[in-house]
């Protein structure tokens, strides 16, 4: 996994609460069996005026110019600023895949849906929770050209105007993200403990180990 250490990047303000993963990446794109190539379809129904289909060439599609992501100044933005309960709904990891594929590295919101939050960390994407008042404050400051510097090791954000904000993050997730560690490798270091657990469980509750056929 791609590690996340520090970024200094332009911020896109997406001023909506409860942005669901169906909106982040609509269902027709979930037919892909690949992990990449979702970026052009990120927020497809909001971003384009026509109906998107898998494998469509997006370079000629009619853009919804009212949608913030279509403003040229945000083309290379790496930070998304948004409202509460971002990523609610479907568990589709295609949502963080699409956000990361588009170029986002960090998302700031007052809260995230649990599954989405978890999925971000598997894909080098840093979800940052700040209290509502701070997010409100950032929305007020965030005019085109607004930048933030996010430093994961320091757990800090330095605003465009030099103010330093702190954020909390689970130490285990921080460690894994900073170092781009493979979760499966880490878990397999406990292979003996897993086997022992399994043997004990199979003795106590053998019915759990019947194979469905």
């Amino acid at each position, binding site marked *: 996994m791609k590690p996340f250490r520090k970024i200094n990047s332009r911020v896109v303000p997406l001023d909506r609460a*409860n942005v669901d993963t169906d909106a982040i990446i609509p269902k027709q794109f979930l*037919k892909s*069996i690949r992990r990449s190539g979702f970026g052009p379809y990120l927020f497809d129904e909001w971003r384009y005026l026509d109906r998107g289909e898998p494998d469509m060439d997006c370079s000629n599609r009619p853009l919804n110019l009212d949608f913030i992501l279509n403003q040229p100044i945000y083309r290379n933005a790496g930070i998304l600023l948004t409202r509460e309960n971002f990523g609610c*709904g479907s568990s589709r990891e295609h949502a963080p895949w699409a956000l990361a594929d588009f170029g986002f590295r960090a998302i700031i919101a007052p*809260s995230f*849906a*649990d599954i989405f939050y978890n*999925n971000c960390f598997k894909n080098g994407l840093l979800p940052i929770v700040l209290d509502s008042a701070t997010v409100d404050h950032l929305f007020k400051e965030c005019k085109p050209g607004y930048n933030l510097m996010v430093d994961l090791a320091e757990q800090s954000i330095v605003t465009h105007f030099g103010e330093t904000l702190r954020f909390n993050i689970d130490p285990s997730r921080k460690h894994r993200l900073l170092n781009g560690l493979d979760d499966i490798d880490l878990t397999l270091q406990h292979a003996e403990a897993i086997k022992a657990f399994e043997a004990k469980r199979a003795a106590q509750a053998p019915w759990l180990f019947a*194979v469905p056929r």
Partner: protein
Amino acid sequence: MTGITLYDKLWNEHLVCIEPDGSALIYIDRQLVHEVTSPQAFEGLRLAGRKPWRIGANLAVVDHNVPTTGRDQGITDAVSRLQVETLDRNCAEFGITEFGLADPRQGIVHVIGPEQGAILPGMTVVCGDSHTSTHGAFGSLAFGIGTSEVEHVLATQCLVQRKAKNMLVLVDGQTESEVTAKDIALTIIGKIGTAGGTGYTIEFGGDAIRALSMEGRMTLCNMGIEAGARAGLVGVDETTIDYIKGRPFAPQGGAFEQAAAFWRDLRSDANAEFDIVIEIDAANIKPQVTWGTSPEMTVPVNALVPDPDQEKDPVKREGMIRALQYMDLKPGAHITDIRIDKVFVGSCTNGRIEDLRAAAEVARGKKKAASVKLVLIVPGSGLVKRQAEAEGLDRIFKDAGFEWRDPGCSMCLAMNADRLEPGERCASTSNRNFEGRQGYGGRTHLVSPAMAAAAAIYGHFVDISALAEKSPRAPTNPAASNGHSNKPKPHRRATPSVANSSKSKPTTKAKAQTRQPGKPKATGNTSATTPQPDKPKGRKKIETV
């Protein structure tokens, strides 16, 4: 000593080890697999040269992408076909049991798992699908995961997790006869919001939950994720055990009795502590209809479309305005005046036999309104379909002008050909009314199966309580249709109230525990003034606010 919650019991029982930083390795007993969220996980295994840890823990089925008509011609959409065939290939390569398209047991992953007895109390159950919460109905810890975690479980049979907090939603009293588990679920979501359960496991308790059949409990836990909770739970009782008995993958004979003795302990202790307790009076719950683009945007059918001007929170108000615009609705309109174009009965929320019976009961001897273009009845599995046909439900639907389809996720998320066209309005028994969920530009109103069938007949939403008064045959209450619940029909309230006023006021408790000063916890202990998670029937009624 303070008792512990069912969630805490399940958590403790699956703990393999705890890292020094506090994250826990949790053992997973069962993984359900479907075609949409698994291809990249299998590919990851292959690229890393890994093998599945315990093949027999997995059960796969195709459901999201499959057509509900013309199956003899296979899947005509090439992209969908490739994804389905990829699952077939992956399961063959790794030796995982799969119900393919031609298997009579094929169906929606969350319907076939319980139906086969592949979900048992006390299990940890995961699937690359948020509605895995469904299986908490069995007293199992079940939650949705992303594709990276699907790969993680395949490779290690474990997940790295942080423990969630405990929430108890207590629905005491009796519901009116036409109120279903779907209405209870929507009422709860309407009260606590779609983020209300974020960070929590929600246990559902109280008389009204105990009175639900297993299918009703599955509907309720299924919608737990729409309240933000990854996992919902209902403690085990005889309803649970009776449901499992005799199912193909469940233990049989003496092994079943041994297992059942173990399962009976799977409930929260009477004096368990919850971080938060929400109380809802069952008698005040009305059949629900969602009016917006989030499941929390729900009102009783006899209410009005709410007015954003009444909302003080600017972010919420903005959300309401956007939703009303998308849904093309005006504040103050009667829900019963909303005309619909299509109806969908099915999904992992409401695609089981009791749901089809409830819809058929309303449709019996009637015809769909001429203005309704399409009524899709999509059974949750091949076995549900067969059972419905044995009961003659398919004839009722066909005679009413409804379409009787093959099993799959269908128009719940519209990955196959079943979808809404832009601007079309649908009465749907599914779980999400997000923008575009049922098709680009489509408008979804979430309802129960009986409410959906009634909308199909009348062409607009109708209050089925009023319908029941006119008709000698009341719509079937799923809770009463499986023999486990024989509750009497309660007296109907005379005057339906408008807007939100008929809903109960849940109490959110966060008072300090007397035994543990300063700890912000509510109690669920046995004292007469505090609720308990699994109050046995017949005990003294506890006052709710």
